[in-house]
């Protein structure tokens, strides 16, 4: 397989959640979330009840993929930061360690300067967490719950 299996464990998840919770507070943000490059939501914090995080995750990843494609055409490295300014909401998108995407949504209670500053710090922390997660995933002998599933389990999923 080309891509190592993406896995999230409780320990790393809690560390990541701490980082995004703090980023919401320290950046005065409305919402912060983390998505993997394939569009799957990893963690979210802030006023998440009012937004469709699944859709946002997929669109953000599509956006990063498209700008990544443009970068390649221009023989650039990936554009690692994007900022979109709206009338009420602004969105700051940061590629972290070329692996995950950190998204901050904020309004006039914050500023781009503050968000940038806090994102930089959070990115470093996230990078470290994902590094350690990745090395854990590559360790042999990690037992997966799916080793045990039977054809019957899979069939049952479709019996409705």
């Amino acid at each position, binding site marked *: 397989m080309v891509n190592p299996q*993406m896995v999230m464990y409780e320990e790393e*998840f809690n560390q990541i959640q701490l980082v995004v919770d703090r980023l919401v507070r320290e950046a005065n943000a409305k919402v912060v979330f983390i998505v993997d490059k394939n569009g799957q939501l990893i963690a979210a914090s802030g006023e998440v009840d009012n937004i469709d995080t699944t859709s946002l995750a*997929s669109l953000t990843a599509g956006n990063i993929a498209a700008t990544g494609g443009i970068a390649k055409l221009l023989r650039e490295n990936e554009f690692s930061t994007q900022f979109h300014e709206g009338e009420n909401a602004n969105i700051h998108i940061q590629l972290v360690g070329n692996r995950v995407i950190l998204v901050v949504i904020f309004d006039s209670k914050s500023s781009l300067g503050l968000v940038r500053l806090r994102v930089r710090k959070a990115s470093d922390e996230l990078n470290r967490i994902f590094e350690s997660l990745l090395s854990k995933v590559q360790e042999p002998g990690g037992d997966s719950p799916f080793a*045990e599933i039977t054809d019957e389990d899979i069939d049952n999923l*479709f019996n409705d």
Partner: protein
Amino acid sequence: MSFINYMAREINCKIVYYGPGLCGKTTNLQYIYERTSPDAKGKMISLATETERTLFFDFLPLSLGEIRGFKTRFHLYTVPGQVFYDASRKLILKGVDGVIFVADSQIERFEANQESVENLRTNLAEQGYSLEKVPYVVQYNKRDLPNVLPIEELREALNPMNVPDYEACARTGPGVFDTLKAVSKLVLTELKKGA
């Protein structure tokens, strides 16, 4: 690349509908969306042109139920079929866990189907995947139309590897869920092997 989340007890997989322009990829997703209960689906997103041609992708998140205490979530994507959107197709194939090739059964689309399968093969190879290894099924769509090729001919041209294949009419539904189930099973079976 599937994503196993031990914390949320979820497994996420990415399925891509591939095929020539206007073969019915978006229609497959629309049918699935209409026929799935609200608690099992998210919003369907279509990034389309003003004339409803897919510009970048359609996206539909689905929950299929639980296996061994893990929620299975499938993210369905379609690619834009028109030849000149090749760059976008490549992006959408990144991290794919399973592919459905939707063929347009109409006689006049025979070559378009063949070109699209070749294009799929090339684009998968560029990502380091191969059509032989990735969970893969074929759907012969638009069987309701009068000017369609016999299944045997389509099968011979488009499914030499003999992967699971289905006749369908995406507009009214027959075959749509069979195709999705077949690829989902292959994806989960693959996950079991890789575990």
